[in-house]
């Protein structure tokens, strides 16, 4: 299998993540969709990295995973703080900063 099939799969995963981020209201599911998008990117990194025989692809995927873990931790902490304050996880109701 060449990398083109993996790139297509990566695009499909990223696209499904985009659908989740754009169309869902539940903030938890929006965060999970972001994780799916990051995973799609990782598939592309790994496929091209192993195609070229270069460990750089794995290193970059490693960095993406670290950032994803940090993002999940901070995002969920923000979510808990918001839920404590407003008793909702509906992102359309959180519009205090909207100008």
């Amino acid at each position, binding site marked *: *299998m*060449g990398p083109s*099939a*993996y*790139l*297509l*799969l990566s*695009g*499909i*995963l*990223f*696209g*499904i*993540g*985009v*659908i*989740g*981020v*754009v*169309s*869902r*209201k*539940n903030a*938890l*599911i929006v*965060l*999970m*969709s972001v*994780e799916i998008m990051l*995973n799609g990117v*990782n*598939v592309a990194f*790994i*496929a091209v*990295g*192993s*195609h*070229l*025989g*270069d*460990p*750089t692809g*794995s*290193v970059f*995927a*490693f*960095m993406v*995973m670290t*950032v994803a*873990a*940090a993002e*999940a*931790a*901070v995002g*969920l902490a*923000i979510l*808990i*703080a918001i839920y*404590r304050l407003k008793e909702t*996880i509906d992102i359309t109701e959180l519009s205090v900063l909207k100008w």
Partner: protein
Amino acid sequence: MEPILFILFGAIAVGGAIMVVTRKHPMASALYLILTLFAVAALFVLRQAHFLAAIQVIVYAGAVVVLFIFVIMLINVPENRLPVERATGMRLLGVVAAGLFILEAAVLGRRFAMPAAPPTDSGSVQAVGRALFTDYLLAFEITSVLLLAAVIGAIALAKKKI
């Protein structure tokens, strides 16, 4: 053998991802997210990226999703107070955006014309570890600072009173 496994695990990953974005309750989404992450780890194994496959299972399925499940159980929104999902306009927009990304990936994949390198162990623990601690040492260390900042930020945000 590899094409069959690729199609199998790719289909599991895509199916799980679709279930994640379509389930109503976030707990079901989190469980399908685990399925997707495991299928992606299997795809990493198919590409000989054994180190990343192990990290994927340990860090993602083992830590990130558990964090999600903790938060879902902690805030425990009752079934009848879950957000009512949006009308079809935003969904259509999402599908169009996703279609654009998939089209882009397909075009990129078709034009991807780099010659394949001879098979190496570029995904092994040894090769990745050597790259991490030589060429990318600074980035690796900065990553640890990022994690520290995230930990402090998460505690500061979630705490009632500092």
